[in-house]
């Protein structure tokens, strides 16, 4: 009888969480296997991400993890030699009405408590930072210069190559069909190709993690909704920060755009009501809706030519916060999912923490933020800002 290959850690999903996790686990000496049903790395939702990275959230968990991610992104090229198109242009949330002014200012109080570099800029000062904003009715906005952007494609791919160099194994075109347990403890996984033994299995399957959880009878409350995005031609830099407009409008609750390092504008809209489900086919309603809103906020975008559009999935949780932590029902099953569209910016910081969880070397800071992401929390709360 042949023995089945055994791994210290098996990660389900080679996406924005699973791929960095593979790198840090392998680097820490764990024998690591990543399984993904798609043909290559980051082909699920990661490649659909637009690449914005910010620490300016409203809760300690995401703030801490993203601050760490920002450190990693900004030094990645020095560390590894790989260019992931990091650009520190900041984030700017604009307010054209008192309602948004109030929301942003209230939020800023909290963000300041975490020592985040964010400030309120009134009409004139904000226009100095973003001269092309529509000045009519502009009250002001927040600007956080420490935030920035990367290429999700290059980032995930760079993690992938370095994970392999560190000894991780990736199997693509391979779907997990069963999670094996014995006496209430994970022992491995079965796929449509083979069976593997493992001490720890990590559910990093994003939009598909409910299905993975169900394999051991866990209800992982993640369901995807879809967002469409697009990219334009390259033009000379005229815009520094990501612009976020949180005013609801018919069909959408907010939208955002930024100029990538390559000179291209990348933009995305949050549909309202949300469009639930796995459909990622392009719709006719997206471009007219988002274009009107963007030209309204920045008339200069009028002549910028759109190159390509796509549609990706946000693995949403009921309260908009990630689900990270050990399963109580089955020993050795770790959840790292439900990033709600922020997997790219959370991924590296979170991946490092996953290693600490498995090594049982949690820091006090980890223990402080874990309850916010607990799989067993009351999902009734609502995130202030998404």
């Amino acid at each position, binding site marked *: 009888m042949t023995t089945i290959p055994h791994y210290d850690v098996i990660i389900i999903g080679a996406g924005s969480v699973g791929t960095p996790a593979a790198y840090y686990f392998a680097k820490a000496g764990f024998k690591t296997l990543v399984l993904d049903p798609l043909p290559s790395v980051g082909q699920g939702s990661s490649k659909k991400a637009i690449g914005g990275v910010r620490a300016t959230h409203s809760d300690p968990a995401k703030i801490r993890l993203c601050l760490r991610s920002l450190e990693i992104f900004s030094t990645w090229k020095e560390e590894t030699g790989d260019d992931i198109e990091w650009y520190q242009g900041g984030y700017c949330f604009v307010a054209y009405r008192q309602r948004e002014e109030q929301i942003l200012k209230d939020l800023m109080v909290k963000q300041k408590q975490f020592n985040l570099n964010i400030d309120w800029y009134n009409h004139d000062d904000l226009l100095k930072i973003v001269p092309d904003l529509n000045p009519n009715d502009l009250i002001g906005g927040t600007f956080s210069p420490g935030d920035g952007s990367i290429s999700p494609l290059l980032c995930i791919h760079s993690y992938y190559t370095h994970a392999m160099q560190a000894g991780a194994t990736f199997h693509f075109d391979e779907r997990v069909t069963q999670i094996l347990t014995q006496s209430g403890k994970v022992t491995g996984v079965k796929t449509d190709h083979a069976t593997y033994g493992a001490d720890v299995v990590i559910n990093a399957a994003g939009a598909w993690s409910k299905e993975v959880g169900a394999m051991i009878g866990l209800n992982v409350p993640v369901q995807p909704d879809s967002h469409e995005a697009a990219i334009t031609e390259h033009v000379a830099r005229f815009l520094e920060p990501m612009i976020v407009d949180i005013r609801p409008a018919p069909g959408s609750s907010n939208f955002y755009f930024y100029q990538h390092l390559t000179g291209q504008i990348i933009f995305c809209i949050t549909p309202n009501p949300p469009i639930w489900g796995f459909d990622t*086919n392009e719709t*006719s309603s997206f471009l007219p809706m988002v274009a009107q809103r963007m030209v309204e906020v920045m008339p200069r975008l*009028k002549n*910028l*030519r759109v190159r390509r559009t796509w549609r990706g999935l946000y693995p949403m949780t009921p309260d908009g916060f990630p689900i990270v932590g050990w399963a109580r029902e089955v020993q050795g099953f770790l959840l790292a999912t439900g990033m709600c569209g922020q997997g790219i910016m959370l991924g590296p910081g979170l991946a490092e923490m996953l290693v600490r969880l498995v090594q049982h070397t949690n820091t006090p800071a980890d223990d402080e933020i874990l309850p916010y992401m607990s799989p067993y929390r009351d999902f009734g709360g609502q995130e202030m800002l998404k």
Partner: protein
Amino acid sequence: MTDYRIQQHPILPIPERKPLEFFWSDQKLTAYEGETIAAALFANGIRIFGHHHMDNSPQGIFCANGQCAQCLVIADGLPVKACMEVVKAGMHIYPANGLPELPKVSQVPAMQPVREIEIPVLIIGGGPSGLSAAIELGKRGVRAILIDDKQRLGGKLVLQTHRFFGSANAVYAGTRGIDIATRLEKDLRAYPSIEIWLSSTALAVFSDQKVGVLYHGHEYVIVKPKVLLVASGAREKFLAFKGNTLPGVYGAGAFQTLVNRDLVRPAEKLFIVGGGNVGLIAGYHALQAGISVVGLVEALPECGGYKVHKDKLVRMGVPIYTSHTILSANGNDKVESVTIAQVDEKFRPIPGTAKSFECDSILIAVGLDPVNEFYLKAKQFNLPAFVAGDAEEIAEASAAIFSGKIKGLEVARFLGLEVGEIPAAWYRTSEILKSRPGKTLIQEAPEVTTGVIPVIHCNQEIPCNPCSALCPHGLIYVDSRDIRSIPVFLGNSYCCEVCERCVVGCPGLAITLVDYRNDPDFPIVSIPYEFTRETLKSKDVITVIDTEGTPLGDVEVISTHSIPTSDRTLVVQVQAPKEIASRIAGIRIQEAAVTQPLAEYVDHIADDIIVCRCERVTAGEIRALIRQGYRDINEIKTVTRASMGACGAKTCTAIIHRLFREEGIPVDEIIESTKRPIFIEVPLGTFAGANGQEGENK
């Protein structure tokens, strides 16, 4: 500044056009009203339109078809494709060097909701198949919108100055492509149920079964058809070789557009890569426009195009190098020479066989791929859809006309109209018209040397029969059940009255008459001729050539004349010794000197071969990834940016597949890259419903 306009053409009339002034880098130049920026710049001798923002490489015209985005210029402050944008009086145009500045806009433009239009049928493409389909629908009163991205209908027919092959009964064979376009358009315009949108580009078929259309170049509209007919034609394949993005390397379609539509002379000395019909015909068009054709390479041992097209070129003095490939286009910022080499049976260049030729332009005519993305998306999204012409299967325009006709009826039937049974014979004709060239038979010269003998220099089985309808006595026979059979002269030496209708009527210029009656030792030979009459006069001495291109001798011209049934094809009569008379198939047009190789071959110094023109990705980079085991083109795209550019992967996809093939990777291991809208780049303001003229509010 030299005027590079064509002033005289044997087939095309030179229209009177209103001149206007525009500025290129602040220099005042003259254009003609209605012409594209690209045509105006070429007419003024400007062939470098900018420099790429990534590596500063020179950019110019490549596709001239609105697809590739190499011809970007800054016109009145906005980046535009020079090949699609019409030049306006007083326009200030600058080269696109590096990243363009996005112009400031001072206020929010007025924005209208995007119009949504319901229509039974949307036809994408107003070329031969789209027009034919629309005519069938128009005849039955079906309401349809036909869109085409160009300013006039006809698709690539408007570039085809030669007379068409095919079946005289079914598809206008014997008529010039340009005239077929006019006839189809006239027929179509008689039907009020068909709405025609010109300068209107399909951008995407969406999953909600709607089609986004850029209407008249500036308004975004959403069309909701009950059924979609995709007749969007073909795109040219690109080729990877050193120097392949130098200005002066064009797709053959681009060249034909500049010469035959825009009436500019983009080259003085041309070299052609590819011996299919497209390359062969482009060579003929070049000669007619007064451009020298230095040579043509074809990688296969035989040209893939019709032999009569090849023969025509060879007779005029164009050397054809079969089993040869292009190694490099040479020059610093424009093409100055080409280097070719012989290839072995695996298409690898044979060392020591390289030679170079002086030329200023290189045409790439290495085949076509269907533009079928809208059809595939429609199928994926369950929008009822049909596909016709080259978008379905690459073939001659005559086949596209016929397949469009059939598809038009199928669409009508789909909509519940009684169209009767589509005759089985139509499908058969359609198949015949699509067929590739068949056997080449060896033809003996006629033995008779008395009376008058028509000599048919057509010995390859191709779908073509206009000659069979030309002889007033019905003496030229082609089997009407299969028009691929070779024509036969049924008469004897006393039947022919030298009406010369067959001479001027054969689309392949492959029939001559030998008249022995006056002087059996020095018969008169009537030869078809499609160059301006002024170039040949009585008593001129010319070199006559046989079908294979062998010079037979120098003979004296007796007359150059036209006959009443002739459509711009002239007859040149020469007197020739009886030994060669029946072998004469044509007249050498260009001097042998222009086709001579350079004394030494030129080695190209560029680093590597470009695969993705938009993002400047090299074959070496992609090949390295394939060797590392990459099989998902999406991943190759991630790492290299290949196919992320402005053209939407229209040029590089075929080459990436070719690289996989060269590396021995089976097709079923390759994961295709995901296809996403939109078809061409469109300003955000257009999607926002800001339909004011571009450039206002600056």
